[in-house]
């Protein structure tokens, strides 16, 4: 009996009960209906309010270090996300970049001043956006063209960013821009913290396939960024971005897997129990039963994959392609499940014109959810990019020859 895993520091069952009780008291019973078709302002207010409630409970930033308000053991975080999903609590969608990408960037590579300036502010509701992608730099992000020209104590930024989720609500931006145009493409990029109130910035929402507008274009026209806002060494922004993206320990995917396994699957079964116009129930069809049991099986596999990845991050044994395997599998499983939901919802599904915001990627508005699932198979490294990473870093297959 030498393993530390046999002696958990906290009583997980007691913690689970406390989260469950808290959720029963705090999760607004009708939030999905109330958050369907609301204005942007109401969405922001609802998200900020929910964030502060979680913060008061001590659960807003469990993954941060203790000195910054976090310090929860991974095993407890797993329980927290399982219970929030089981209670169908709203998700922290507005603060997602702030809590994860911005925080991990500041913690991994930021200066003390940058951390002092921003981490407490994030807890008070400071919203961040990621300014990485560009019209000509999607999957091939390193070919980005936006510039940040050093002039004494400032960088002067120019160019265009795209797919910046939530930019219209953001206070700050994680910006990747080219500071040395003559260097090889991965060696001339700098990582900057950009105040979204800076003169010269123009934010334009993009209307998406679903009709929503979470994503924005950001136009930069001689935007001044103090050199003190540089993260990591000048021209090492690509390396900083790689390091901070990989700082994600699998917990965000675990949360999404739990959502899919709770609300997502339960609603799918519920949907299949509803009699159609002819009075028959889809669930009485053997093919429908077979598909549902298949989804149940795959979700179980996904959830197990996620907890296993969190464990292996803790143990330091996570593989180079493990995060890609989880992201790819989640994205495509989500898409297949939402496709099935859209099919089972039938014609009535097409009359559901809006979905609740603040929800997971399975909202019960099946046709919109099906369409929205491409928001998982395309961004954050498309499924094709993930397969290439799995093949090359996971299996050691040779790289594609570079086009001359």
């Amino acid at each position, binding site marked *: *009996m030498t*393993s530390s895993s046999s002696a958990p520091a906290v009583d997980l069952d007691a913690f689970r009960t406390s989260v469950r009780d808290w959720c029963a008291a705090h999760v607004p019973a009708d939030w999905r209906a109330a958050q369907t078709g609301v204005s942007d302002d109401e969405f922001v207010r609802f998200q900020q309010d929910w964030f502060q409630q979680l913060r008061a409970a001590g659960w807003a930033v469990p993954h941060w270090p203790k000195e910054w308000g976090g310090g929860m053991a991974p095993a407890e975080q797993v329980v927290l996300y399982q219970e929030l999903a089981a209670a169908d609590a709203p998700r922290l969608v507005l603060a997602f970049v702030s809590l994860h990408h911005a925080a991990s960037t500041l913690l991994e590579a930021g200066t003390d001043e940058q951390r002092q300036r921003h981490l407490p502010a994030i807890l008070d509701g400071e919203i961040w956006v990621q300014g990485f992608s560009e019209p000509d730099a999607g999957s091939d992000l390193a070919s980005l063209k936006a510039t940040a020209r050093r002039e004494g104590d400032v960088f002067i930024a120019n160019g265009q960013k795209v797919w910046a989720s939530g930019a219209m609500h953001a206070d700050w931006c994680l910006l990747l821009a080219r500071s040395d145009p003559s260097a090889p493409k991965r060696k001339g990029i700098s990582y900057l913290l950009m105040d979204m109130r800076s003169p010269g910035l123009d934010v334009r929402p993009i209307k998406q396939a679903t009709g929503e507008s979470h994503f924005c274009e950001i136009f930069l026209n001689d935007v001044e960024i103090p050199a003190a806002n540089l993260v990591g060494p000048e021209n090492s922004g690509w390396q900083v971005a790689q390091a901070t993206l990989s700082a994600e320990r699998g917990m965000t995917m675990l949360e999404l897997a739990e959502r899919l396994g709770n609300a997502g699957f339960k609603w799918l079964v519920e949907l299949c129990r509803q009699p159609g116009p002819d009075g028959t129930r889809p669930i009485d069809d053997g093919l429908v039963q077979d598909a549902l*049991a298949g989804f149940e099986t795959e979700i179980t596999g996904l959830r197990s994959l996620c907890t296993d990845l969190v464990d292996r991050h803790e143990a330091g044994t996570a593989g180079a392609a493990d995060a890609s395997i989880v992201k790819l599998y989640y994205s495509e499983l989500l898409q297949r499940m939402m496709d099935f939901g859209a099919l089972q919802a039938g014609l009535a599904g097409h009359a559901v014109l809006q979905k609740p915001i603040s929800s997971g990627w399975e909202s019960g508005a099946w046709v919109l959810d099906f369409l929205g699932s491409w928001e998982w198979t395309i961004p954050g490294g498309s499924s094709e990019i993930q397969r290439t990473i*799995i093949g090359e870093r996971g299996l050691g297959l040779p790289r594609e020859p570079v086009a001359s």
Partner: protein
Amino acid sequence: MPPSSEFAEIHDELRSVGRDLLARSAQQHDVDWKLLASSGWLGLEVPEELDGAGATFAEVAVIIEEMGRAATGGAYLGTVVLGVGTLLAVAPAPDRDELLRAVANGATTVAVALPTGDDLASGDLPFRIENLGDGLRLVGRADFVPDAAQAERLLVVAAGLEGRPVVVEVPPGSAGLTIEDQPVLDATRRVASVVADEVVVGPAAWWSFAGDAEAAVRGLVDRASVAIALDSLGIAEAMVELTVEYAKVREQFARPIGSFQAVKHQCADMLVSTTVARQLVGQAIAALVEGPGGDAEASVAASRAKSYATEAAMDVVGKALQLHGGIGYTWESGIHVFFKRAALDRSLFGSPTAHRRRLAARYA
């Protein structure tokens, strides 16, 4: 439960020794039984006082997976997976103990006539004991019983006089008993039909299951299902490795075929489904080891593992064959061996559809 890291070490060692040993007898019909006995793999779960190792199914699982990886032939499925599993599920008795000891020592081989098909829900058994007035008789028929024609000892799971399942040992030469080899495409496994036409059974000449007999039978079928899922997991792992190695060295259009995305991405998919299968199989093993035989959670986990892992393995072997190109379709490449074994795995002890039907029964 002992800490998992301690087990992980034991399992790694077992796996390493197993892989090495099985590689030397890979794809032979009969793995060296004496070697298996001296390695201690036959009696892993047998109590120490009966010359076993007193370990659990989690350790047996390591060997089963490695046997799938090497497409090992021989009677491990009949003797250890089904035989030891059945003997451990019945109430201890001197003759039972002696048989367990003989298995652990490699002195004998066992087959168990259990339902091998898609009826997972009814609990109906293919054999029953009848009282014909002048004595008790065993009647019934089972097909595709693993290792039945070669095993020295035959156990039959039958409905007893009051319908409660019991285990009857029937000597292979008994009057009225017909065991016929059923040739199948998978050359690494042997299955047979077992027909009992009024075979004489002595009064009370059977073993009763310890505890709930129906649950115990369900537990045996679950155990068989998980073992087959493990075998398929091993097959999938072997095929991913073989294909990746080939894709790294086989060149066409002046570059390794593994550098083409059309090939690379299929290899990635093979790895993903194998990885998911490993998670589901791991959960099913844990449920079998932790819970009492035949409990609902273990059955659910077994059905998930069996349906997913066997389908995944079939898909992975198909991709392996495709990505090897013409050479993959030759007898010599050996991929057909894994293909046929994976296909038999998929059908044996409940098809994926049958297992999903059992899962879906919980939704109504």
